[in-house]
């Protein structure tokens, strides 16, 4: 286990910059998730930590060592790839013991470590099989086994669950988190799935366009997103964002006036953010027209028209509202987010 420090990391392909000065501190044993839309540079950053991409500028440290110029094998890291990257011509046991074999470990030690990892991941009955004889979930487990068998200082995961179906993804999510809790190894995990990020991370790094938008604990990001991008990216369904003006009477969005908490400074060009679950139905409030009702069982998701804006509300109640019906919305005043419409920065 070791801390990982990224200091002013830049990356360019030719004259095209893709990472613009990334600074991240990952504590010893921490589970950090790099999350962001496709093309934001998160996988590139992970590959730079792994040593599979060169560093254009800045320093990557693992423990006390700057590893910029070290080969992947010398960084004491293990990586789980999106498509598992298991060697098709080797059995599960050989796949798992391969790295130990090439680091000069004895046969007895290899067998011991492979069996230890196989026991943790429930792979014992599969050790003599070939990757082609395994299901997606089993392959994923073998890929993790190959990573843990060497007891590295850092685990790197590159979208490891994206090839699995939704149900298996939830199961494997729990397994990876459980594995981290058991082994306590510093982990950097890349995903574009904000649910994975929220459920697994000690710390989330939200990236966009080669920059870090915000770093923080999952619930901190959820409760106080630093800007509009993070507000929209973290949370599902996404936060409602309504453009308008902050006035003394409330937030004016066209013909609609939304209530504001006290003490908010006026602004002419602002965005009113409210999460779907922070809207409630009341006898009196902001009138909205029901557009679509989606019963989810545990809750009801309703798409509403609010003046010229479309918003989503998630309600615990089982609603019987019909499309076209007018309801009244009551935003939770303690959960309102205000952003500058030009810079996207947080105002409150």
């Amino acid at each position, binding site marked *: 286990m070791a801390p990982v420090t990224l200091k002013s990391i830049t990356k360019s392909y030719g004259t095209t910059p893709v990472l613009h000065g990334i600074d991240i501190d990952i504590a010893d044993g921490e589970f950090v998730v790099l999350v962001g839309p496709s093309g934001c540079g998160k996988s590139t950053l992970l590959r730079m930590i792994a040593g599979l991409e060169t560093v254009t500028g800045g320093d990557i440290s693992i423990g006390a060592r700057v590893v910029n110029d070290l080969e*992947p094998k010398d960084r004491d890291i*293990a990586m789980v790839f999106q498509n598992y*990257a298991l060697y098709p011509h080797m059995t599960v046991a050989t796949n798992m013991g391969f*790295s130990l074999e090439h680091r000069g470990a004895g046969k007895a030690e290899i067998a011991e470590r492979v069996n230890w990892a196989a026991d943790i991941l429930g792979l014992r009955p599969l050790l003599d099989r070939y990757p082609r004889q395994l299901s997606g979930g089993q392959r994923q487990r073998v890929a993790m086994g190959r990573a843990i068998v060497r007891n590295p200082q850092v685990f790197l995961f590159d979208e490891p669950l994206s090839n699995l179906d939704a149900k298996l993804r939830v199961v494997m999510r729990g397994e990876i988190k459980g594995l981290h809790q058991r082994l306590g190894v510093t982990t950097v995990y890349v995903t574009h799935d904000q649910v994975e990020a929220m459920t697994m991370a000690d710390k989330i790094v939200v990236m966009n366009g080669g920059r870090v938008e915000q770093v923080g604990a999952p619930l901190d990001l959820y409760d106080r997103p630093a800007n509009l991008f993070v507000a929209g990216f973290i949370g599902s369904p996404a936060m409602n964002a309504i453009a308008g003006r902050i006035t003394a009477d409330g937030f004016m969005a066209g013909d609609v006036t939304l209530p504001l908490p006290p003490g908010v400074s006026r602004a002419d060009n602002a965005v009113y953010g409210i999460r779907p679950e922070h809207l409630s139905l009341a006898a009196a409030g902001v009138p909205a027209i029901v557009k679509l009702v989606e019963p989810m069982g545990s809750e009801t998701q309703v798409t509403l028209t609010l003046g010229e804006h479309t918003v989503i509300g998630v309600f615990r109640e089982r609603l019987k509202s019909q499309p076209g019906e007018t309801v009244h919305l009551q935003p939770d005043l303690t959960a309102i987010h205000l952003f500058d419409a030009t810079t996207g920065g947080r105002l409150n």
Partner: protein
Amino acid sequence: MKTDLSPRMKVALYGLMCVLLIPFVFPTWWMLTSSVKPISDIFAFPPDLWPRRFDFSTYARVFELQPFARQYWNSAYIAALVTGGTMIISSMAGYAFARIKFPFSNAIFMVVLLGLLIPSEVTIVPLFQMFLKWGMINTHWPLILVPIFGAPSVFATFVMRQFFIALPVELEEAARVDGLGRFKIFWLIALPLAKPALGAVAIFTFLHSWNLYLEPIVFLSSTQMFTLPQALTQFTDAYGGAMWNIQLAAATMTAIPVLLVFIVAQKQFVEGLAHTGLKG
């Protein structure tokens, strides 16, 4: 693939296939049957599809008229060396062109490929002069070196390159993380996975070398050094006329390894070409 053809259609289809088979099977059948006919029966009209008389002494005479066993060995060991050499050279070159980034790699590969466009007849005279200078005329060296570093190897390099291009990069990256250097990645990861392509290269190269005709007649002059295709033309009587039955007996023995290679490895050959995207 499952089809729902009616019995009548099936009969028609198999009938058509049998008819189409005739031009492919007939020469082999004619070679086999004629190799055990007395020479006068070969030219009988109408021709006999089944020999009227069997004369197996033709096979013994093949070995009496020429050092055929020695020539057989010549062809076999030359083909084996050429196959092995080409597999080594083409797999390494193919891997380099597919995976290693170096300046002008694509342009260099194109230049290498252009070599395929030059007919061997064009280069045979300069090659003769070169090997003459090196004292290698009437030795087997030209028959080994020319294919290994010539057109067959270029084609094999192309096949291997196409295969390695399709190999997932993540496998190599995983190997790098696991502690392997470039050569070990090639040797332990890429090459074992390239078995189908290597199989196709091996078959193609072996057959090419086994059937080589122009180069042996240019570079070899003594019957002891001859290879089989060249030896086949030497079964003539005192007047220079072909001894057809003996020649066809020799041809049958020459074709046996080729047929065996195809029967044993045809699946691998097709798979290999399919993997490299060369199959239509």
